[in-house]
């Protein structure tokens, strides 16, 4: 059976769920067929995957220097 086509708007709606693997195999297959022929949606997918990777990197939201030490001191000071 041929894959049913999916529109760009439908693809954008599911990009995040696609990255989280929270979509059905059918939708995944349709999206993958779409990415093969649509450079725009592929750019949106790549970009979104890239930012998710960057945000998840431990170097973003680094704790300030001395954070742990000050926290421990605060705990030790408790009456």
């Amino acid at each position, binding site marked *: 059976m041929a894959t049913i086509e999916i529109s760009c708007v439908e693809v954008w709606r599911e*990009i995040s769920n696609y990255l989280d693997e929270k979509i059905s195999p059918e939708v995944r297959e349709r999206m993958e067929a779409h990415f093969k022929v649509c*450079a725009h949606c592929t750019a949106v997918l*790549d970009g979104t995957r*890239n*930012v998710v990777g960057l945000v998840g990197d431990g170097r*973003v939201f680094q704790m*300030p220097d001395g954070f742990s030490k000050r926290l421990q001191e605060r*705990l*030790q000071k408790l009456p």
Partner: protein
Amino acid sequence: MSTPQSQLRADEAELIKSVCGGAREAFYELIRPYERMIYATAMSVVKNAADAEEVAQEAVLKALSNLASFRAESKFSTWLIQITYNEAKMKLRKARPQLYDSIDDQQQTEDGDHWPKDFADWRPIPSELLEQDEIRQAVQGAINSLSPHYREVLVLRDVELLSIKETTIILGVSEATVKTRLHRARLLLRDSLAPGFDGCWIKGLTYRKVRPW
């Protein structure tokens, strides 16, 4: 499906028992693996390092004094992050009551699709560049520019890597809301970090080099 009792890790159960039995010095061991999550959660609400640290300390003290009431219906980390989130919200409310209300009111427009702003070929930002302060600040700045509801979900899911279920518990919203907000947050973040942010394809604007690489 796990039972509520199975949510607690054995090593954490031991530490909690010790702390509740009077060995208070064991408490830092219990929370140490979650320090960065606590800090990031606080940052996602208050948006500045000094306030986030204060919130983090208060949240940890609150967790210690309420430890005996922890019932292991959720993971210990979820409970801890929920306390932190509530503490941060309270700080924001105290500091800027009017602003807090107005920000919250603006968040009710989540229906409809978010359409990406551009379709330029994505030139990936290599994660090694996060070694550079200015790149880290650019990513942090883009996250801070999101509306609170988007930012909070993004930080819990994509920074702290919590599950959708854990995120629903902490924020008190449905799974569908978490998914919608996360989706929006990611696309908005992509828009603000996109190569197009340079302004090079926007008519009438001169090229501004904001990406130094």
